[in-house]
């Protein structure tokens, strides 16, 4: 009886034998992360637990990163005080800390070399599935879980079932991993993979650059997935090595592993997709949308704020201006991406076109960050991951979700636009 990647990684961390879906295991966690939208309560709880206890220890605190990304910079006093507490905690216990402007947790963890193939990583964020792009089991948990990891180095897991998704063929120019996930959302529905792990395989995955693979694993959170695992290849190893990660321990599924479902997507023929307002699984081909005006274009977040996203946007906007009445905000996912984009001259192109560039962080993903609040009747097109009513602070606004290519093409024309119809929309092929 064979095993999936999820069963193997969890089993490897819980005694060594592969685990079986449905089983509950206690596993050794390699690395943990807590961000500023969750740290407040957790750090208070840890202080309370440790108060007056001579033998209270946090033996795994140095393998727990603290990331100040959601409130970057803090929009209110409460968040600012959480930041103060996080800095004090990191100083006292020696935890790695990523401060305001360093970037989004899911970008800075891999960039910081904190994980490698075969690892088990938890973070206080649903998009912790991102680490699956590096063949690591990454999953979202809460402050209590990360506290337990800091105290014991272990955590309990229900071993998930797995859906195997085969991506057949490289994506066309102008089509991105974002479009693959949006297509999957239209097929499975939001939460259609609830409790389950995904395994993405096939020539469509092999052809993707690491940036796009990270989108694929990240955006699986909208499908409700517990983890979204890719096999490792030479691209993975080269990226991890360049970021000083530990030696990879790649994990592959067995040929006779058990899956709850097998899905094949003809990615070579997939057109760009867009999620219409309010529902992330209300998805259509971008070319099916006509005369849909937009006023705001947002590029950023842990889903699509990476260098390739910004390069694609700049390729479309080079030497051009945003359509009249359109505002555009670009937020790189990390300081490293910010620096690279700046050195490549991408910010000059975007700024000249009429866009604004913000410091790295969660940025315009959700209103609580304080970076963008929509006005009444405004239509926003965003490369973020969620678009439910009121996500940007106003139930009387609309959020449409698409790739950075779709967002930039739409910013250029003022209408929801298929990037394949504008110059520069095929950037990846030209590069």
């Amino acid at each position, binding site marked *: 009886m064979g095993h999936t990647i999820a069963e193997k990684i969890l089993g490897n961390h819980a005694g060594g034998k592969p685990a079986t879906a449905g089983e509950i295991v206690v596993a050794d966690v390699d690395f943990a992360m807590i961000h500023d939208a969750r740290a407040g309560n957790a750090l208070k709880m840890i202080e309370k637990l440790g108060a007056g206890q001579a033998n209270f220890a946090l033996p795994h605190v140095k393998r727990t990163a603290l990331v100040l990304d959601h409130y970057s910079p803090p929009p209110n006093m409460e968040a600012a005080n959480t930041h103060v507490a996080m800095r004090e905690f990191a100083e006292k216990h020696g935890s790695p800390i990523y401060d305001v402007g360093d970037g989004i947790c899911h970008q800075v963890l891999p960039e910081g070399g904190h994980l490698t193939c075969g690892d088990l990583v938890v973070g206080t964020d649903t998009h912790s599935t991102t680490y699956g792009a590096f063949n690591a089991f990454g999953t979202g948990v809460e402050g*209590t879980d990360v506290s337990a990891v800091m105290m014991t180095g272990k955590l309990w897991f229900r071993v998930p079932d797995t859906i195997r998704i085969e991506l057949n063929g490289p994506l066309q120019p102008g089509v991105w991993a974002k479009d693959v996930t949006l297509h999957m959302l239209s097929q499975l529905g939001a939460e259609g993979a609830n409790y389950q792990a995904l395994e993405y395989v096939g020539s469509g995955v092999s052809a993707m650059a690491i940036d796009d693979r990270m989108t694929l694993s990240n955006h699986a959170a909208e499908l409700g997935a517990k983890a979204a695992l890719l096999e490792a290849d030479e691209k993975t190893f080269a990226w991890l090595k360049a970021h000083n990660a530990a030696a990879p321990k790649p994990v592959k599924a067995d040929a006779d592993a058990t899956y709850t479902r097998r899905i094949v997507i003809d990615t070579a023929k997939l057109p760009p997709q867009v999620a219409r307002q309010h529902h992330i699984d209300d998805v259509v081909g971008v070319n099916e949308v006509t005369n849909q005006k937009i006023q705001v274009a947002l590029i950023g977040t842990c889903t699509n704020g990476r260098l390739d996203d910004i390069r694609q946007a700049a390729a479309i906007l080079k030497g051009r201006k945003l359509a009249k009445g359109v505002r555009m905000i670009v937020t790189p996912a990390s300081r490293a991406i910010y620096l690279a984009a700046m050195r490549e001259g991408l910010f000059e192109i975007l700024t000249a076109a009429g866009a604004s560039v913000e410091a790295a962080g969660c940025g315009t993903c959700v209103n609580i960050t304080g970076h963008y609040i929509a006005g009444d009747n405004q239509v926003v097109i965003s490369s973020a991951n969620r678009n439910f009513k009121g996500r940007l602070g106003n139930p009387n606004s609309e959020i449409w979700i698409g790739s950075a290519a779709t967002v930039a093409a739409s910013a250029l024309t003022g209408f929801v636009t298929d990037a394949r119809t504008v110059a520069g929309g095929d950037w990846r092929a030209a590069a």
Partner: protein
Amino acid sequence: MNIIKGSARVLGDEVSTDIHCSSKYLPGKDTAYIATVAFDQVSPGFAKAFKKGDVLVAGKNFGINSSREQAVHIMHQMGVAAIVAPSFGRQFFRNAINNGLAVIECDTSGISAGDAIEIDPSAGRVVVAARNITRAVPPLPAAVQALLAAGGLIPFLQKNPDWNLG
């Protein structure tokens, strides 16, 4: 685990606890305050009518999407004895167990507000006698029962630092 008995209080499908049972969109408001207004937008007056020991009966994907564990603290404050729903958002499901609140996956069709409901988590049974409803559900795994019995993950680890989940 003991049998849980209570009066049913009913919510619909796809209720996000981040939106309806947390301070995410009410910065500065504390748990005690939110316990008096939780779920008002999907069921006006829900929290005010909720009595200690009532059972929250919900539709599919209760606690969908991102889920703060503060929601479970608020529900403890409201006096929620257990939650029964056909499915839960993954993160909410985990948070409930980690914070000592029993979550039972069970078809909830036909159950109405005010119905006396009886849950046997160990045997895997949900009964609403007045409506002739007896539904078999997967019994909660022993490890989950151990966490719930301790009152959640941290109280469990304080007594069992070696993670002996049984």
